[in-house]
């Protein structure tokens, strides 16, 4: 007995000597109590509301001596659903309260439209803006708008038009502006303008190019750098439109990639009625070429029209000749467009321009794939409209993705979305909850973060709370806590390779 006890003791000691030095790492320690966000539970989100609010912004007004921009911090009150870029431009067009600054445009100038297409803003001012006293003020007006809008809502590029036309104080186009557009300065632009006489002299400008969406329904502006010379402004733009390098898979080049010259002639002419147009001649086999390239004629001409009028100064539109005949009518998704004097203008395609919204679906490797969807900026302002895209199936060209929403659910299962104070409260139906109970942990993660990441693409949302039938629940099916707000998960995102089909 004694010997057995001694042997047992030795055995225990030896075994304890072989034991690990530290405790095992468990992901969860059951005895730990973390703070609970119970007191932080928001009211149920019913319907779609985007809370009005006040925004602290910096407005850049031209200085009184028209030599520089004067920053002015102010707080703007936004009405419910009012887009901030438009409100900013309106503020710039009003009389500044500060001394030493002046309004960005002549008095009476109105903002015809201020539209945001992702990171591009296009501001179209009324013709009154042309009443600036000199070229320098015109330059400062563009710079003031660009500088003010950049950095707001993720805007990086600003195109300023006057009555639907690009305006430039110089012979060369100004191009779209960005946050650093003033760094070049007026003097540099002027010096460049004086060298235009050189045969090989070109300048680098940012042009807003309008690419056709693959869905065939809209055009999506994209900012690209182009090198242009004073002798030929059209060809570099057409070349850029034909170049699909780095283009989102949801877009396609506007011009087909053909061996033979596609555009047989391009010149800028002034018509008898005084309108300045770009006259373009296309190969007579245009229809066949477009069909082979699976392009729409309307998207081709609309793309060229919007791109050229947005870049080339004082260009009203384009005239198109196919073979020997002039294009007089164009069919578009909005219906037939009768062309006055055969001129295509920017205004004719205003409603067909769209921004590229990003939604998320599950890629084959389990990550969340960012997918572009062309959508009118006015629609994209509605979080419900954007989320509704998640309930749809992947597009035909999106082969390796699948939707994250379980089958049998629709956008009607979104009971309400409220956006306020940087948070979106997403109220989903009980059916949505029930359908999610059989999701795997990865499916649950992808579903939740597809919703979160899609909503946080909005500049006014940086976290999302979930409710089901107006109630906050601990979790959906597995480990992701829904008690508090969730920030986006950038590490889960994979991006599709740009489409090089063009």
């Amino acid at each position, binding site marked *: 007995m004694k*010997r057995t006890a*001694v*042997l047992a*003791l*030795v055995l225990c*000691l*030896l075994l*304890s*000597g*072989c034991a*690990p*030095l*530290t*405790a*095992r*790492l*468990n*992901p*969860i*320690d*059951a*005895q*730990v*109590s*973390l*703070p*609970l*966000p119970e007191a932080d539970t928001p009211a149920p989100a019913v319907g779609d509301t985007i809370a009005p609010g006040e925004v602290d912004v910096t407005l850049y007004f031209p200085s009184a001596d028209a030599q520089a921009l004067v920053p002015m911090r102010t707080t703007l009150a936004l009405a419910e659903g009012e887009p901030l870029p438009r409100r900013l431009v309106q503020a710039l067009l009003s009389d500044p309260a500060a001394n030493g600054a002046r309004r960005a445009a002549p008095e009476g100038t109105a903002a015809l439209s201020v539209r945001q297409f992702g990171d591009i803003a296009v501001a179209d001012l009324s013709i009154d803006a042309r009443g600036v006293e000199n070229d320098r003020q015109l330059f400062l007006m563009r710079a003031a708008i660009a500088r003010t809008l950049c950095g707001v809502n993720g805007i990086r590029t600003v195109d300023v038009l006057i009555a639907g036309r690009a305006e430039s104080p110089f012979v060369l186009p100004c191009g779209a502006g960005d946050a650093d557009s003033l760094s070049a300065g007026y003097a540099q632009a002027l010096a460049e303008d004086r060298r235009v006489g050189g045969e090989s002299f070109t300048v680098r400008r940012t042009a807003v190019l309008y690419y056709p969406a693959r869905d065939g329904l809209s055009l999506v502006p994209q900012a690209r750098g182009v090198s242009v010379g004073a002798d030929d402004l059209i060809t570099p733009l057409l070349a850029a439109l034909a170049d699909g390098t780095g283009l989102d898979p949801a877009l396609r080049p506007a011009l087909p990639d053909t061996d033979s010259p596609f555009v047989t002639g391009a010149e800028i002419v002034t018509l008898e009625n005084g309108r300045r147009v770009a006259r373009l001649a296309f190969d007579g086999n245009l229809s066949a070429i477009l069909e082979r390239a699976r392009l729409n004629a309307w998207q081709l001409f609309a793309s060229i029209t919007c791109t050229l009028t947005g870049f080339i100064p004082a260009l009203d539109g384009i005239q198109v000749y196919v073979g020997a005949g002039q294009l007089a009518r164009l069919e578009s998704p909005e219906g037939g467009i009768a062309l006055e004097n055969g001129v295509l203008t920017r205004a004719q395609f205003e409603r067909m321009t769209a921004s590229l919204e990003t939604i998320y679906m599950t890629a084959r490797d389990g990550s969340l794939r960012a997918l572009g969807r062309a959508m009118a900026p006015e629609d994209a302002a509605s979080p419900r409209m954007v989320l509704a895209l998640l309930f749809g199936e992947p597009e035909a060209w999106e082969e390796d993705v699948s939707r994250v929403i379980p089958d049998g659910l629709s956008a009607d299962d979104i009971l309400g979305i409220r956006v306020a104070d*940087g948070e979106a409260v997403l109220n989903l139906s009980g059916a949505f909850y029930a359908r999610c109970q059989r999701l795997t942990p990865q499916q649950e*993660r992808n579903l*939740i*973060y597809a919703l979160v990441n899609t909503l*946080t693409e909005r500049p006014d949302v*940086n*976290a999302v709370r979930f409710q089901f039938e107006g109630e906050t629940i601990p979790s959906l099916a597995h*480990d*992701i*806590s829904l*008690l*508090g*707000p*969730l*920030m*986006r*998960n*950038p*590490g*889960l995102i994979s991006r599709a390779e740009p489409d090089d089909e063009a």
Partner: protein
Amino acid sequence: MLAYLLIMCVAFYLVSATLIRLVGEYLFSQKADDELAAARAMAAAAESPLAGRDAEALWSLARDGAGQTGRVLVTDLYGTVQADSLSLLNGARLSRRETAAALNGQGETYGCYFVGEGGSSVSARAEADSMVCVYAVPVGGETPAGALVYITTSQTAYRSLMRIQTQMLTWLALVTAAVMLISLFVSRFFTRPIAELNEGIVEMTRGDFSNRVRVRGKNEFAQLAVAFNMMCDRIESLDKARSQFVSNASHELKTPLSTMKILIETLMYQDPMDPGMTREFLTDINKEIDRLNSIIGDLLTLVGIDSGEKPVDMKPLSVADLLNDNMRRLQPLARERGIEMTLSVREQVMVNGSASRLTQVFYNLMDNAIKYTGRGGSVRVELNRREKKAIIRVIDTGIGIPKEDQPHVFDRFYRVDKARSRETGGTGLGLSIVKQIVLMHGGHIEVASEENKGSTFTVELPESPRENA
């Protein structure tokens, strides 16, 4: 032996465990300080993005801070992961001790853990069977808005520690084996002589006094073995003596009894018996009775001496006076046998003793000398003093004692010439009694003899202290 082995193992284990712990602390403390400082810096950098809910900035910070092998997580106030360098735990509540401490205002803390075979979702980058350290630092100072959790692998340090532990265990096993072998050897070394000794004792208890223990070396066990063997020799000798004594005593007692039985049976069954013959028979019987009486008296004397009791009449005595008394008593006998008997007192010596016992010694020696000396011989008694001892010599010119019998003349019932001894009326106990009395007085007796030339008995008695003073 097992107990010693256990003590050795426990001691070695404690030393090993302490050493491993010290080395582990040394290896991990510097690393922990550095990594905690890194976590602190990241937490400071995360404060603004977390407050502004800038997920891209947080993720970038986490990814850059994690490096190749680490992992960084940023939780909000409720412990929900809002940024993960691996983007796997976003949304999960990080219910860990370290996170709770950071969020509940207990400040920064860390812990090191062993990642099992299956790994852990928290340490997705750590290899299985490795060690990770989890650091949690509040984001936002005293009122934390979240926590930054920095997870690092400590593979190098952990492997070093494991190697040390393995080596320690190997050494533990080797030392255990060595201790076991040494213990076996040592215990065998110590217990074998004891076992042999025990075996010898057992044999002795069984009555076998011939068994001896093997003596190895010169250590204490060897000395013990020698002492044991000596004791065995002595016991064996005593046993033989006892057996001999019993045998001799029986024989000596039986002989007169047998004689008396024959004589009495003759008297009983031979009828008519001549009166002269009858008287002669009765006289013989009487003699045998005297003889028995004498033997028994001597035996009782021996028993009294053997009991170790000192005589009650111990006192300083003049040896010369004792010798003179005996001379006076035996002189007539010597003269009768034509033997010249002389006493030579060269120096007066006092001894402390029993007068009756010492008289018995001297009488016996002188009587024996007379008995075994032929007519015309001489018996000389000398008293001398040497080295604080009284030296008494009884020298005769008798028949002497054969050399082979000399060592046994003091044995009980030992007779050199058994027939003659009985004829002279000896019991075979006289010299034994003499020797015992001399020994009882702290003295010594020895005999020197040459056959047909005579014998010399020398008695040495310690001088009386009073005399000495």
